[in-house]
């Protein structure tokens, strides 16, 4: 095990998969000569060459569309969308093509495709460049959506995504790249569609993923000083959504707070809360609380933006409400 950053973990997973399987290749804006706008593919262009590390024009629909086509021929493309905000320019190909072809043609079409992209706010990029619309993508059966919160899971999930026979949207977070953690060397796979308890506790269940795992962990540490032990379940995959660890935890604590960075309306928290109410109603001791982004497009101004994003204090306050 080595202690490496999220950036290194993602980069390693990609590198190892490309070394292992010549059918894996990368396409996207600035992935080659530039080395990736978040430096994930730094050094790849020189090592793997321009055939396998393909700089594309600014053309998101063509990036995803071409990746789908190449996947249908048996290749394993890893398409990079610079940020998830630009995925809207490729929405038809993600939703109407990638998520549909296998089903609609009765299993004849197989698309081992990964779309890597970056979500999240907090960097003063303004309304168009700061969104966390992850939940939207989890709406569509046929598409798998994963979003790691730790370097270990980032490596394991990306490798699984590349080896998956299905289209997988792999959502990274812009402000997690420097986060460090222990990551197993070599062939380490994390199954898609498995939630995980990241911190054990007895008093309350916090359900979260990605960047909000970090925020929730800090909240849990502060709560622990007051004698409140929060159990944190990291969803890791939004679709398929694995409720087992959530329900097991909830049946123990009888209280839950769901923390997501995106807007709460029609969001991850709504979905998880509904499933808890449906599947564990008898165990509910307090109304479930959701912590999410304020319902506004994110502004540029630093203080305003921070006031709209879920903070550690918001998580603590929500936990205290359900206790």
């Amino acid at each position, binding site marked *: 095990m080595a202690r490496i950053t999220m950036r290194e973990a993602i980069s390693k997973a990609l590198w190892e998969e490309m070394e292992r399987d010549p059918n894996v290749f990368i396409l996207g804006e600035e992935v080659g*000569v530039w080395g990736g706008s978040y430096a994930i593919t730094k050094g790849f262009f020189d090592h793997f060459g321009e055939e396998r590390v393909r700089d594309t*024009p600014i053309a998101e629909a063509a990036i995803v569309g071409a990746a789908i086509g190449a996947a249908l021929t048996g290749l394993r493309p890893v398409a990079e969308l610079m940020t998830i905000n630009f995925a809207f320019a490729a929405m038809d190909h993600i939703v109407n093509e990638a998520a549909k072809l296998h089903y609609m043609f009765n299993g004849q079409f197989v698309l081992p495709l990964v779309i890597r992209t970056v979500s999240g706010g907090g960097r003063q990029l*303004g309304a168009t460049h700061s969104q966390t619309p992850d939940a939207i993508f989890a709406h569509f059966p046929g598409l798998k959506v994963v979003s790691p919160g730790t370097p270990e899971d980032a490596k394991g999930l990306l490798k699984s995504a590349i080896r998956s026979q299905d289209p997988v949207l792999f959502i990274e977070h812009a402000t997690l790249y420097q986060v460090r953690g222990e990551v197993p060397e070599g062939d380490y796979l994390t199954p898609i569609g498995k939630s995980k308890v990241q911190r054990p506790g007895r008093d309350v269940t916090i359900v979260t993923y990605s960047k909000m795992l970090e925020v929730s962990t800090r909240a849990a540490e502060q709560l622990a000083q007051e004698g409140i032990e929060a159990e944190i379940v990291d969803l890791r995959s939004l679709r398929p959504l694995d409720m087992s660890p959530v329900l097991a935890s909830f049946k123990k604590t009888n209280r839950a707070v769901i923390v997501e960075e995106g807007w709460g309306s029609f969001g991850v928290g709504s979905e998880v809360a509904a499933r808890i109410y449906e599947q564990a109603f008898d165990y509910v001791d307090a109304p479930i609380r959701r912590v999410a982004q304020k319902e506004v497009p994110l502004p*540029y101004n630093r203080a*305003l933006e921070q006031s709209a994003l879920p903070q550690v204090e918001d998580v603590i306050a929500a936990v205290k409400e359900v206790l």
Partner: protein
Amino acid sequence: MQKAEYLELYHQMVLIRLVEEKAAQLYQQDKIGGFLHLYIGQEAVSTGLISARQPQDRIITAYRDHGVAINCGISAKEVLAELLGKATGCSGGKGGSMHMADVEKNFWGGHAIVGAHLPIAAGLALGDTYQKKDAITVCMFGDGATNIGFFHEALNLSKVWKLPVLWVCENNQYGMGTAVERASAVSEIRQKALGYDMLNSRVDGMDLMAVRQAAQEAMAHVRSGQGPYLLEAITYRYRGHSMGDPERYRKADEVRRWQENDPIGIYRAYLTKKRLATKAELDRLDKQVGAEVLEATQFAEASPEPAPEALYEHIYADN
């Protein structure tokens, strides 16, 4: 043009340059956040272009918008205040570098999704045509933006509906780190107009007077009701794509060569040669602009932050 107008254009170019140099400093001091795409090197394009518009004409551009904002008449104070996220900024501190606008000045914004504002430009022109207004829309975008579907849909629509749009491609040789010829099937961007049977031309974007003349001709065509026109301005950005660009895709030498052809230098030479200004006069103007930027910076720094309630303002126009 009268002498004062010639000098006003000089003033605008120097103002853009100095405001942006100041912005780069403020960014280093962590007073500006997010992305900061500088226009330095490209000043002659927007200055020449916008000098040729009439007040009723609409301007719309991408995220590299500080220069365009200044040419449209937004003050250095409001530009710098926006960059600092202040309530006095042209977007109230909510837009930032990439999202400046002032509708009263007919500047319809900086737009940060590549190519997305082109169909909107077609719609602005449609609105004017529909309402029988004698206005045209000038839509600026980069070379990289001509590779996304939005560009092609908008150009086609504007031609089919004969919309009064002047499409202006600022070909600064790169979209981020990707050279034009690595991303575009034709490196002469104006050729893309041919597929839409659209009039087009190419101009030296470092030469203010050349841009102004080309813009006047193109605008006359668009205004006459004969439909859209694509103008390609050949230019270069001296700075990185945004702050913190490692610039691995080009050599310092290449940047230096373009800098020898500096738009402000070319225009200075033009003004002195035509005896429209002496070197001393221009030097004095430079100093004045320096003082103006200093004052604007002080204004921006002293301005208030937006009120916390501003977060919830303008989500919808309905009450």
